[in-house]
């Protein structure tokens, strides 16, 4: 086999060289495999991953926003009802307070009446006791006076009935 190396021969301008074609195919295949593995697939995957992440973030944000809006409307509704609720509450409280007030006043009245009554009773009792004491003293005094006036030997037992009668008449007269 005769090899001819590095001589200035040229191929025809328009022509097909089977070796070159094979070489072109081989190179195309190699470039394709490498570019697919190193460039297109990784870059596309990177883009898609990032896109997915961004989409997820946006979706999350949208969900949060929706939830917030929901809560907001709920709260607004609650607040708009709060006035009525407050009034209602106040009204109930007033009514209750009024009832309680009346009750307390009634209780107080009753107690006062009781106290007055007891005081009256005590006064009555005291009065009676005082009258009794006065009666005794008066009877004693009457006896003393009578003893002094008459200066006679009077037997107290004889006249006691008479004096008691007298005092009782006085007491009854009051």
């Amino acid at each position, binding site marked *: 086999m005769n*090899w*001819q190396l590095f001589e200035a021969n040229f191929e025809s301008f328009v022509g097909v060289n089977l070796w070159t074609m094979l070489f072109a195919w081989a190179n195309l295949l190699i470039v394709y495999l490498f570019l697919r593995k190193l460039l297109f697939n990784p870059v596309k995957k990177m883009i898609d991953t990032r896109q997915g992440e961004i989409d997820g973030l946006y979706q999350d944000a949208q969900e949060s926003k929706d939830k917030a809006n929901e809560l907001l409307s709920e709260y607004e509704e609650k607040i708009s009802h709060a006035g009525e609720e407050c009034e209602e509450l106040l009204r109930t409280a007033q009514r209750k307070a009024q009832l309680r007030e009346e009750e307390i006043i009634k209780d107080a009245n009753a107690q006062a009446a009781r106290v007055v009554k007891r005081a009256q009773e005590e006064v009555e009792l005291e009065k009676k006791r005082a009258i009794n004491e006065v009666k005794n003293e008066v009877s004693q005094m009457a006896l003393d006076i009578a003893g002094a006036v008459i200066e006679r030997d009077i037997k107290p037992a004889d006249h006691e009935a008479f004096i008691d009668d007298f005092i009782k008449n006085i007491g009854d007269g009051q």
Partner: protein
Amino acid sequence: MKLKVLIPIIAVLLLLAMIVPTVIVTLSQQADGVTPPESEGEGGISISVQGPKIYLTIEALEGFFLGVLANPITQTTVTLLVATVLLITVAYFINRSLKKRPGGFQVVVEKLVNMLYGLVEDTMGKHNLKFAPYIGTIFLSSIVCTLLGTTQVFRSATADLSVTVAWALVTSGMVWYTSIKNFGFKSWLKGFAEPIWLMTPMNIVSEIAQPLSMAFRHFGNVAGGSVLTTLIYAALALVSNLILGWIPGLISSIPFFQTGIPAFLSLYFDLFSGFVQAFVFSLLTMVYVAGANPPPEEYTSPKGDEE
């Protein structure tokens, strides 16, 4: 303001690019066309447009198959290798620097990848997104192989018909494979006899013409650009020689006019054309493959549904 100035300049340059080569070629044909540019003064130049340089020839194979197997290593293979290594290296470094919180460069890369997937989805439909890496590969390969030619160290690999034919055949192979997978082999064969059996030769021709037209379009644009660039360089050398030739000494042999002007033309013929052709090639691939792989609900074969 800048654009207003630039557009007429570019227009004039493009006009020049069309007219000057024609004039030069006519002139050079009239003037025997054998005198090399070094022997100036005669007013003629010889321009040779050649295919890729051959680095290795196996003489034993030169007799077979019109010699298509004789030259395994050419400028094109070198360019393809360089493009492959370049693309894989760049991809490797991009891959290593990928972060969840992207930096400036990664944003650009992601934008481009997104654009690619968006384009594939728009053109081919969501069910064909698995083809996006291949479309991106063919686009990047095409661009890099074309632009490597502007370094002048390498020759554009896409200016070699072998490469574009190989790529176009890959597209056709994908189309045929998906067709057969989706509609079945019999149905696919029957598709050639649509709408009537008389059309069979036409259908076969169109099936062959599809990759060929793709290949020749891409090859023709890039190779044509380089041919034009060569012609313009030669023409500018001639103009330089004509205007400055009277100066004695070394100065007259320096082609001053070759500076600057070709750069503007290169903007169009290499950069713009390279992008457009890469885009067209990928777009055609997308359209053809998408035609063979319709959305899942239309799987009732549109090619042969008389059964």
